[in-house]
C-alpha cells in the first residue's frame, strides 16, 4: 500500500507500457515473413565495492543514487552496484516497445526498482524513428547507456562531466533521423519532455519541465563524435525553506533568494565528445558546460581518457576536471545593518547558503584502472582515483561533514564486476 501511495505514476507507467505491449502484440498482423511479435529480454548489472580515504564526506558517482564510501562506510557497495532488466518487443516491422527497469540506491535509501525507460517506438522509415514515453537522454557520449557498466571501459563514467546531469531519462517524445554524408553516418535526435526526482522522504522533488534538446552523433570509421545540448526549466524543492527565510529579510534577502533559488530557472547543458576506438586502443574526450542559474552553479567540465587492449586486459587512464564559472561563496545578508537577534539569524542563513554553494563541484582527478574480460558477458574492473576538490568546494563528494577540508587529495579504490545477460 505504501508502494502504491508513493509511486502511483510509476505503477501507471508500468501498467500502461505492459498493457500497450499486449494490446499491440495481439493486434499484430500474422502475415509477416518473420514470425511477429519478436520478444527480447536482456539485462545488465554491476556488483561494486568502493573505498574512499576521505572520512568527512561520501564518495558517490551520482547525487541521486548516493554512494556511501568514506564517511558512512569504509567500504561501500552502494556507489556502483545496480541491476537492470530490459524487455523489448517488435510488434510489427514498424512498431516496437521497450521497458527497462533498474534497481540502484535512491535518495530514499532503498533499492526499489524504477522504470528507467518505457517507450513505444515507431520506425516511420529506415531513417526516421519516433518514440513516445520514458526515453534515455542522448546527452554525453555514453549518456544513453551510462548505467550499463559492461559497455563502459571504466568502473563509472568520469564524475566531473557526468555528475552535472544526474538524471538519464525524460518523459516525452523524441525523433531521430539517420543520414549519410560521404562515409560518415549521422544520427540527429530531437527530444521534448519532462522529468522529476523525489529528493527526500517528505515528498520534496526536483522537477525539470519543458525539457528539450538536440543531439547529433557522427560515426566515421573508428571515430564517434557527439554534440548535444539540452535546456529545461528546473525547480528544486530541497532548498526552498532556506530561500523563504532569506525572503523574510526584505529587498536584500529577496535579491539573494532570486539569484540562488532553483525556482523555475532555465538550466542549459552543452556537450561535445569525441572517441577514437580502432579495436586495439582507444582515446576519448568530452567537454561540457552546465549553467543552472541557481545554487546548483554554472560549471565547465572535461575529461580525457585512453586505454589499450592486451587480449582480455584493458588498462586505462583518465584525467577529469570541473571548474565553476561563478563564485562558490556569497557574502549573503549584511548582518551589521540588522538588530542583534536578526543579525544572528542572518549569519546562520549565510552559513547555510555558503554550505550549499560549496557543493558546486570544483575538482580535478586522475584515475587509472584495468578491465579484465575474464569470461564472455563478464568484466572485472579495478580502478584507482585520486581526486582533489579545491577552492572551498567539496567537489563531487556528498554527505559533507563539518570536518571536511577542501584542497586535500582523496584516494578512491573501486572494484566492479560488470555483467550482461
Amino acid at each position, binding site marked *: 500500500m505504501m508502494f502504491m501511495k508513493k509511486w502511483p505514476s510509476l505503477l501507471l507507467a508500468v501498467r500502461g507500457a505492459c498493457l500497450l505491449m499486449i494490446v499491440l502484440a495481439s493486434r499484430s498482423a500474422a502475415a509477416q*515473413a*518473420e514470425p511477429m511479435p519478436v520478444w*527480447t529480454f*536482456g539485462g*545488465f548489472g554491476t556488483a561494486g565495492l568502493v573505498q574512499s580515504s576521505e572520512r568527512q564526506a561520501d564518495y558517490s558517482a551520482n547525487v541521486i543514487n548516493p554512494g556511501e564510501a568514506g564517511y558512512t562506510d569504509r567500504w561501500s557497495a552502494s556507489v556502483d552496484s545496480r541491476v*537492470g532488466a*530490459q524487455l*523489448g518487443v*517488435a510488434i510489427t516491422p514498424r512498431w516496437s516497445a*521497450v521497458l*527497462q527497469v533498474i534497481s540502484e540506491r535512491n535518495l530514499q535509501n532503498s533499492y526499489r526498482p524504477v522504470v528507467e*525507460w518505457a*517507450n513505444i*517506438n515507431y520506425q516511420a522509415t*529506415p*531513417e526516421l524513428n519516433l*518514440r513516445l514515453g520514458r*526515453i*534515455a537522454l542522448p546527452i554525453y557520449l555514453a549518456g*544513453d*547507456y551510462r*548505467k*550499463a557498466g*559492461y*559497455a563502459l571501459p571504466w568502473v563509472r563514467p568520469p564524475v566531473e562531466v557526468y555528475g552535472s546531469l544526474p538524471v538519464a531519462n525524460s518523459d516525452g517524445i523524441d525523433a531521430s533521423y*539517420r543520414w*549519410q554524408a560521404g*562515409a560518415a*553516418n549521422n544520427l540527429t535526435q530531437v527530444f521534448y519532455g519532462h522529468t522529476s526526482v523525489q529528493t527526500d522522504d517528505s515528498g520534496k522533488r526536483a522537477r525539470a519541465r519543458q525539457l528539450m534538446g538536440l543531439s547529433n552523433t557522427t*560515426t566515421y570509421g*573508428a571515430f564517434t563524435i557527439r554534440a548535444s545540448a539540452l535546456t529545461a526549466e528546473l525547480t528544486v524543492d530541497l532548498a526552498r525553506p532556506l530561500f523563504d527565510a532569506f525572503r523574510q529579510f526584505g529587498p536584500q534577502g529577496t535579491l539573494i533568494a532570486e539569484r540562488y533559488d532553483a525556482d523555475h530557472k532555465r538550466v542549459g547543458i552543452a556537450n561535445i565528445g569525441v572517441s577514437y576506438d*580502432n*579495436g*586495439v586502443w582507444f582515446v576519448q574526450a568530452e567537454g561540457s558546460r552546465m549553467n543552472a542559474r541557481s545554487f546548483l552553479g554554472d560549471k565547465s567540465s572535461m575529461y580525457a581518457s585512453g586505454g589499450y587492449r592486451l*587480449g582480455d586486459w584493458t588498462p586505462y587512464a583518465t584525467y577529469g576536471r570541473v571548474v565553476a564559472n561563478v563564485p562558490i561563496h556569497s557574502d549573503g545578508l549584511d548582518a551589521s545593518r540588522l538588530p542583534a537577534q536578526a543579525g544572528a539569524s542572518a549569519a546562520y542563513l549565510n552559513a547555510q547558503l555558503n554550505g550549499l554553494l560549496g557543493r558546486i563541484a570544483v575538482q580535478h582527478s586522475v584515475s587509472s584502472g584495468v578491465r579484465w*574480460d575474464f569470461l*564472455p*558477458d563478464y568484466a572485472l574492473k579495478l580502478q584507482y582515483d585520486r581526486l582533489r576538490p579545491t577552492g572551498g568546494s567539496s567537489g563531487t563528494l556528498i554527505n559533507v561533514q563539518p570536518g571536511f577540508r577542501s584542497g586535500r587529495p582523496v584516494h578512491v579504490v573501486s572494484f566492479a564486476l560488470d555483467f*550482461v545477460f
Partner: protein
Amino acid sequence: MMSKTIVGVLLALACSQPLQALGSDMVVIVSARNPNDTMHAGQVADIFLGQSGRFPDGSLASAIDQPIGAPQRDAFYLKVTAKSPALVKAYWTKMIFTGRGQPPREVRDSVAVRKLVADNPGLIGYIEHDALDASVKAVLVVR
C-alpha cells in the same frame, strides 16, 4: 593507412584461429533477384551494425548473421567492420542498452543463410565462397 595496416595485423593475430579454420574466401550475398550487383565494405558494415537499413539502390535491407562463435562470423566482422568478436559484443551491448536496436537475426549455418537470402531480396548475408550457388549472388568478396 599505416596505422590501419598495423591494426589489421594485430586484429588478425588476435583472431588467427577462425581464419585458419576457414578454408576459403568469404562472400557477402544477396538474393539473385536483388538488383544490387556490388557493394563496398562500408555499406555492408553499416547494414550489419544497424547503422543503415537500405541497399545502395535505396531498397530496404536486413542482415542475417551466423551464430556466435562460427568462424565465418568472426572472420566477416574482423575483415568488414574491423571488430573482434569481443568488440562486436561490446558494440551491441551499447546499441541494445541505448534502445537503438537489436543485433541481426542469427541462423544455423551458411546453407541456412543462403536459403533465407535466396528467398528474400530484402536480406543480406555472408557465407564461404564454396557455399555459393545460383540462387544468390556475391556483392562483395571478403579477403
